[in-house]
């Protein structure tokens, strides 16, 4: 199964990156951990995200669209980075996540979310939809 692993933002991560010795050491530790994931065949993809000062939100209200510029409050609700892993089950994902070096100085949080699999979506896609070839990009339900 595939999971997405979210690293939650902190007040510190929202301030952006500065190459302090501590930050460099944390980077190296995370690299070593990812290397271990690669060697175990678990690693699929990963990326870090810039602070929310560079983010935009689009708010939907019926037909109305409002764009809201960052930064956003409540750092702990924001995502600072993510990884995608191929694991056997959630237990394995948790066991790997516990081995991850603390991604932030101080208290921080990682959240693991399993992807929807084909079997979960059987009720959402009609045979007509599937039989009609489409040309454009659509991505109705972006899933594994």
């Amino acid at each position, binding site marked *: 199964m595939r999971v997405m692993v979210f690293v939650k933002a902190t007040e510190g991560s929202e301030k952006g990156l500065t190459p302090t010795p501590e930050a460099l050491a944390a980077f190296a530790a995370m690299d070593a951990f990812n290397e271990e994931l690669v060697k175990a*065949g*678990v690693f699929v993809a990963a990326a870090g995200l810039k602070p929310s000062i560079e983010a935009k939100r689009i708010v939907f209200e019926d037909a109305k669209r409002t764009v809201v510029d960052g930064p956003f409050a409540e750092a702990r609700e924001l995502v600072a980075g993510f990884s995608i892993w191929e694991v*056997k089950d959630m237990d394995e994902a948790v*066991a790997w996540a516990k081995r991850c070096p603390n991604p932030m100085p101080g208290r921080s949080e990682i959240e693991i979310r399993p992807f929807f699999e084909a079997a979960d979506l059987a009720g959402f896609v009609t*045979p007509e*939809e*599937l039989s009609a*070839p489409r040309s454009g990009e659509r*991505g109705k339900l972006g899933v594994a």
Partner: protein
Amino acid sequence: MTESETHQAIEATFRIERARLVAGLARLTRSIDLAEELAQDALLAALVEWPKTGVPSKPGAWLMAVAKRRAIDALRRRAMRDRKHAEIALTQNEAADGALEIEAFLDDDIGDDLLGLIFTACDPMLAAAARAALTLRLVAGLTTHEIARAFLTSEATIAQRLVRAKKAIAKAGLTFEPPRGAQRTARLPSVLEVIYLIFNEGYAATSGEELTRPIVAGEAQRLGRLLAALMPGESEVHGLLALMELQASRLMARTAPDGNPIPITNQDRARWDRLLIEGGLQSLVRAERLAAEKSGVAGEGGFGPYLLQAEIAACHARASRAEETDWARIAALYDRLREVTPSPVVELNRAIAHSMVFGPEAGLRLIDAIAADPALRAYAPLPAARGDFMMRAGRRAEAQSQFRAAADLTRNAREKAFLLARAAALDAVG
């Protein structure tokens, strides 16, 4: 955390370490059974200790240390017994030297242990099905039950297959050393073959109700990524990974909710997995570069069979609409593939590609040339392709009987229904 949750967490940690543990112990004891037993003992020790002490910071090293102590004890006992039989006196010094040797041995590169285990499980003396079962058991850590489900067979069959394979390995006196140099290159195809066989078990079931069993396909990709990390310099390893990722990207699009297969040209490409496609294309670039470096030839000239197949899969992945598919390149790649690995199945696929570039009559001519091959006599895709060419050439009645012949041959219930529907559709309009 309840006691059972703690146990679950410990077992999950153990599963992560198991393959490396078994690999190191097998190389040391030269016995898979003993290695599995020692690893299991280490798990039992962890289940007793860790709830009290917490999970150690290096759980793999902890487990290995426990298993190692027990391995040394077992080896000493065995050495004593052997020597007693031979009536040779054992001095204290000799025993101590032996233990030191073992210490040094276990500090060796872990990746090497794992490679040694993979190459041993995939030894060419074993039948491909036995190699696949052993690799899934020892390297991927699947249970007998899970392997049986993957291969749609009984647990007893798999258990027997595993026992026989282990016996054969013991009898042949395999050392669990990874092959080196030219030997490594020579033995690599038997490893790649096994991983691709496992992938195909998941990707296209040859029989039964379920056309795709994505879980095994995922396991094969994981093995492929593992191998790519262990052998980063081998073009074909990356080629196989690229091939699996590019094919797996279509898993979600290739079956309708009613279970019927959807041909690649009709698939909803928005449902293709972009992440796998991107990963596959990256592996492809790596494989191409390594092939060019090794052969000194630019382009397809130096490509191995997996890389060539990955290139074909990439032609589909790169086309955002079916009409944009570069069939001319696919046909050329099949021309090359049949030189590298001649097989009737490759010939059939080549005929399909040529029919897309040069028309259905060209496809029919190529199929006629291979139809007599005994390997294709009961091969459903042959009449299915022929039926398709005939239909496109306007030969409806002949096409219909070809689709029916194909339906008679396939063991897959879904595919059968699909082929019969194609035959019936010709009836309705004609």
